[in-house]
């Protein structure tokens, strides 16, 4: 687990990875089943009778809790940004465009968050979870002001909240945000999303850009933060049985 100094870093603007105080909710069955790790979040049970119009009710468990914003930065304020750019293209000065977009209450203002939970409540114990070895959970160290205790973000619980009902508690560093994105990818899309991280570990640099040239789809060009470019070349005619791609490194400074 990262140290608090490496994990926390204050930023004024809303960002992916922000830790917030907000309401969270999930749909539940009629027996109000609540797993141990979510018991503290499930403070209220709402049962809407006949919501299905067939004698079938709709159940909700809701409560207040700490949560991490998992919406990507680019999705935050997306409609607001689009509106600002439309107005700018129509010839409006940026300040006026921002003011007009802000006054438009119809623009999307939602965030997706995942709650912070006590790892002791998880089946299997807290060791592996706090070490970051369990897919679906991101370890969070104790905040220096004790606003956040040592816990994990439960990425398997995601809900949409309105930013008007969200209180920002703290934000996290770029390194911690990378861990969050990696955990999200592994949970939602790719169980083996570590190729890029392995490359970064091997070359000791950070990948700043990845592209596949249109004219050469067998090649993947990886640009590092120091300007070096790594070119991954698939061997024609000999695809690997497991991944379909083998890697061969060609490195040069400042050129292909």
């Amino acid at each position: 687990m990262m140290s608090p100094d490496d994990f926390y870093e204050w930023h004024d603007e809303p960002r992916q990875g922000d830790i917030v105080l907000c309401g969270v909710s999930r749909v539940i069955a009629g027996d109000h089943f609540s797993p141990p790790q979510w018991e503290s979040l499930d403070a209220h049970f709402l049962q809407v009778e006949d919501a299905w119009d067939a004698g079938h009710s709709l159940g909700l468990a809701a409560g207040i809790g700490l949560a991490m914003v998992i919406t990507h930065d680019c999705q935050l304020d997306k409609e607001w940004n689009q509106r600002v750019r439309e107005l700018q293209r129509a010839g409006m000065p940026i300040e006026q465009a921002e003011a007009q977009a802000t006054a438009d209450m119809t623009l999307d203002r939602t965030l997706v968050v995942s709650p912070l939970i006590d790892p002791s409540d998880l089946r299997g114990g807290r060791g592996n979870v706090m070490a970051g070895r369990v897919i679906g959970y991101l370890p969070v160290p104790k905040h220096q002001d004790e606003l956040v205790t040592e816990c994990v973000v439960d990425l398997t619980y995601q809900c949409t909240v309105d930013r008007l009902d969200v209180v920002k508690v703290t934000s996290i560093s770029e390194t911690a945000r990378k861990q969050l994105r990696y955990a999200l990818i592994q949970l939602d899309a790719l169980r083996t999303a570590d190729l890029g991280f392995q490359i970064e570990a091997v070359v000791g640099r950070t990948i700043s850009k990845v592209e596949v040239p249109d004219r050469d789809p067998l090649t993947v060009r990886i640009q590092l933060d120091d300007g070096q470019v790594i070119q991954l070349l698939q061997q024609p005619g000999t695809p690997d049985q497991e991944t379909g791609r083998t890697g061969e490194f060609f490195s040069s400074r400042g050129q292909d």
Partner: protein
Amino acid sequence: MSPQVQIRQAPPRDDSEMSGPWSILPIADTLLERRSSTSTRLGMPFVIHDRDALLLGSDAITGASVSCASQFWKTDISSTESGIIYTASPRPVREEVQKLRDEIARRTRLTRQQIARAAGVDRRSLSAWVKGSATPSIDKFERLQTLAEVAREIDAAEPGRSTEVLLSRTAGQDLLDHIAAGHFNRVRDWQTLQGSTPSVRIEHRRSTKRPLHQNALDAYLSGQLRPLGRVATIRPESDYEQDLSEADRLMPDEPIRRSRRGYR
């Protein structure tokens, strides 16, 4: 001389808004006038709910014969004995509609569109009835009356809840839908329907452990933390685009794991 009463049905009209049996029109406060002199009112309250009521009324008035060569909202009663023709001149339809609409709006917070929905028409038709540029059919007028009647009942039984009760849904339909469908008996039994409307049950559970968010909540309540609010941030435009056709080329295939039975 024994009265001779003749009733003639109103002639059928092409206008569908005007169709229907004229005799069941519930016309309140009708005054009979001599057709020959509009200034002379006989001043007889004459309520016509159905054909029988008209017969009784006409019997009492003329003691002679009655002919109903009326149009939809007008009834002529003539005496063959005296030769005098009486004309029923009820309050104009538009005034009746306006009165009902205003009463419904006063007792509930229904919009004109919702009132029109109960009558089975759109808002413009309702407005046209009030202006007098169109006339409602009996069916639609009856729906308005039923809505007003039910609003009155709900207002008396549960003051302040008329709108809520009228708009509460059962099986996807509210009382306005039932009125529009002509299910008047079901609507008048609104209390039974209301008993089956969706309700929300809430249970609270207090955690025995100190919640993780307690420190942050205390900080917020003491003013140390602030809501995000609506302040937005300018972000790069290019990041809004995606090309799903790239997925097949860029994403690795899921490894195929077969069980001994061949299932994935």
